[in-house]
């Protein structure tokens, strides 16, 4: 019984405290900045709508002082800040002057009040803003918000903000608690927070605790960084693999130095763009699935172009690799100009379907975007299909037969010229698939192929000409090497280092990772 009474009394007191009083309004509005800031912090404990409205008015310069009355201008009306009664504007009303410090305080108080918004997004944004300027004065507010917060992710963030606020506390035990709390966060901004505090810390015990927390955060971050670099390395590797797979057939198996390979990719990317446009116009409802239609279209567009090139130019140049190099370079120039004439010289926009945006959050500083994950999966799918085509089908058997020994294959009744066309079309089609994938991660423009052609040749040469497995290892290896170097030396230097590495590697193993063995090695 007594307990009940006490509780209700407490609630009553609490209830009455949760409304801005005339005294509070006055002390926030008038006086020295120091005392106003203090009063503001106190008023923040009573975080209700009236306080918020008054602070907003202050922030908007809509508050005037007339004698001992505080007045708020609301459009045409003038309202007493405490009683909310409409009053006439006295002649001696003066504007309230807020200096920059006061303004900053009011703004962050307003942000803090957003912690109690009903909208999850607004609360999350408020938490984020508080992270940067959390201090002890906001602690009661944060704790109050914590008590009512139901969304777990916002709650986690709020806990971090609380720890950050504690970190600046004058109380040693609170700082120690904060260090412990922050140690488990594993976020990049925690690290900067801890570092900043560590610099100003004088107490040895707290210093040790901060140091320990920092190490823990750093190791968690380091894991995230390492896994992140590994993932982006695999992601880059999968793109390199897609780019080089087609070349592994046209160059690796057939010996054609196809400098137009990049432009065949570009055709695949533009085919994707066209399919996207068609879906936009005729099937807006199914727009999300345009990519599924674009994959076969990109393959066919590039494959047909490849077949055309093989029939018209390349078949006259077999066995003269340097001449194919020049002729296909000419082809690449013409294809680039063709695309410029048709689609314009500017990059065109290819949108990701909605199911490809977003990602999986794995660690505090590691999230895996869906489009990268899907491209990795796509690369595996294409690789599997190519391996199956070459290793298990009749066409693959003929292709292998013709590459290994053309006269004998011909004697056995294989139409070698047709097989050449098919093989070249297959390699070109795979380039088209690569272009389709590239359209989802980069710019689509007439120069798309140029950026990848050197990389593609590097992968094939490094992997060992004519070796599918070598291409896979080389693509993944280069991708991962590149990304790890990038974290250490920056993107351009990493790229240069990789190129230098390849040049040195080729010195040691001129035939690539997997040297050809047996009869064909002499050719």
């Amino acid at each position, binding site marked *: 019984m007594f307990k009940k009474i006490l509780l209700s009394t407490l609630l009553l007191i609490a209830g009455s405290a949760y409304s801005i009083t005339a005294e509070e309004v006055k002390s926030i509005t008038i006086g020295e900045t120091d005392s106003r800031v203090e009063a503001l912090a106190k008023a923040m404990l009573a975080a209700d709508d009236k306080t918020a409205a008054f602070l907003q008015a202050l922030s908007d310069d809509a508050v005037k002082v007339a004698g001992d009355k505080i007045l708020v201008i609301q459009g045409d009306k003038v309202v007493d800040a405490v009683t909310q009664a409409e009053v006439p504007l006295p002649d001696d009303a003066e504007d309230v002057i807020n200096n920059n410090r006061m303004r900053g305080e009011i703004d962050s108080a307003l942000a803090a009040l957003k912690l109690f918004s009903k909208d999850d997004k607004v609360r999350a944004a408020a938490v984020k803003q508080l992270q940067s300027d959390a201090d002890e004065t906001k602690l009661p507010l944060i704790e109050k918000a914590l008590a009512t917060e139901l969304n777990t992710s916002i709650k986690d963030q709020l806990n971090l903000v609380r720890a950050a606020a504690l970190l600046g506390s004058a109380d040693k035990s609170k700082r120690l608690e904060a260090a412990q709390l922050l140690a488990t966060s594993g976020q990049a901004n925690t690290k900067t927070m801890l570092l900043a505090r560590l610099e100003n810390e004088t107490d040895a015990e707290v210093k040790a605790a901060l140091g320990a927390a920092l190490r823990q955060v750093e190791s968690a971050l380091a894991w995230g960084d390492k896994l992140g670099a590994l993932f982006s390395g695999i992601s880059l590797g999968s793109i390199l693999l897609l780019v080089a797979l087609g070349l592994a057939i046209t160059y690796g198996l057939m010996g054609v130095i196809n400098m137009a390979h990049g432009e065949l990719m570009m055709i695949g990317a533009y085919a994707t763009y066209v399919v996207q446009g068609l879906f936009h116009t005729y099937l807006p409802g199914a727009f999300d699935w345009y990519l599924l239609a674009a994959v076969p279209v990109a393959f066919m567009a590039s494959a047909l172009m490849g077949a055309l090139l093989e029939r018209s130019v390349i078949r006259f140049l077999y066995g003269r690799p340097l*001449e194919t190099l020049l002729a296909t370079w000419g082809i690449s120039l*013409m294809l680039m100009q063709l695309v410029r004439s048709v689609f314009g010289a500017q990059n065109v926009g290819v949108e990701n379907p909605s199911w490809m945006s977003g990602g999986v959050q794995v660690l505090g500083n590691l999230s895996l975007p869906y489009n990268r994950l899907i491209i990795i999966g796509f690369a595996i799918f294409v690789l599997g299909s190519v391996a199956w085509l070459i290793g298990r089908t009749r066409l693959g058997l003929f292709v292998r037969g013709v590459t290994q020994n053309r006269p004998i294959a011909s004697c056995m009744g294989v139409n070698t010229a047709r097989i050449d066309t098919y093989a070249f079309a297959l390699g070109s089609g795979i380039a088209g698939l690569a272009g389709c994938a590239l359209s989802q991660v980069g710019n689509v423009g007439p120069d798309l192929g140029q950026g990848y052609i050197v990389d593609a040749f590097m992968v094939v*040469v490094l992997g060992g000409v004519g070796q599918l497995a070598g291409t896979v290892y080389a693509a993944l290896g280069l991708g991962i090497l590149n990304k790890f170097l990038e974290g250490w030396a920056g993107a351009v230097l990493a790229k240069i280092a990789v190129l230098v590495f390849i040049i040195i590697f080729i010195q040691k193993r001129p035939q690539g990772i997997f040297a050809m063995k047996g009869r064909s090695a002499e050719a």
Partner: protein
Amino acid sequence: MKPVVSLPSPAPLLSRTGWAAFLVALIVVCAVAPVLNLLVPAGSLFHLSDYGVGLVGRIMCYAICALAMDLIWGFTGILSLGHGLFFALGGYAMGMYLMRQIGLDGNYKSELPDFMVFLDWKELPWHWTFSDSFVATLFLIIAVPGIVAFVFGYFAFRSRIKGVYFSIITQAMTFAAMLLFFRNETGFGGNNGFTDFKRILDIPVATPSMRMTLFVLTGITLLGFFLMARWLINSKFGRVLQAVRDAETRVMFSGYNPLGYKLTIWTISAMMCGVAGALYVPQVGIINPSEMSPANSIEIAIWAAVGGRATLIGPILGAFIVSGAKSWLTVAYPEFWLYFLGALFIGVTLFLPDGVVGLVKRLATTAAAKSGDKA
């Protein structure tokens, strides 16, 4: 005991008609062009415009590259897709000197080149140390491409990288260099490179007489290099090169080590490109990393292929034909230039394996055969 082999007596450097043509070319470059440009009034039919001087001067620089390419590709069988790098290195060496010659006349009135002031650098980086000396610059123009080519070539030829592998690695080399030069920290002006040159040897660059001097200098260099190349390939050294091209294994079995031969001609070829680059930069007034783009290096190979490989005169013609067509087409029909160039590549490789010179020779023999029939 020395094996007794009767070598055919060495061919003369040039035939009588060859010397006559060479002399005519020399007179045209050194006397006719300057007179037509500087003395003949601008309205006259025979006036050679400043634009024409600039164009021909530029193309003669290209022709030097094509000649260098012919030595390494036509006569030694090594296709380089990295000659644009050596051209650009020579150009940058010259460009650094020209930048220093701007002195206090830059936009920021500073001793430092403008782009360094812009990047808030306080002093010249170490590799600019000798750039204010013209003599050192002349040395660097040859030495830098030479050293880069020597080091690269030594490793490449030692591990017997050849054919397409070599081509692709040279392409990677120039690509890597381009990425490097695009960076601001490298100290070569990044994306914009060097431009806004004011004078050379304290003489203003943009005067008609200076332009003509550079033109004549380029022409003499081209002709000099032509004679040198001719002498090289007629020498025993040149014959070994051609033997390497045709049957490298047999050359090795005959007791020669191809490494030294290939490395020497490779380095000479790179130095020639460096000189071409150095002559090119003051004439066009700019050098930037796009000169190192793989496309530029491939274009050099195209000049050689169009004109006719292993003919020396062919690549020079090729440079004039292709670049001339380029400067005309890019003005008259900008849309069609790449179609034309592409078609040229394909057409030459498919139908004119010996280039224009081969075509002329073929036509000459058929004509001779026909007239022989009549007689």
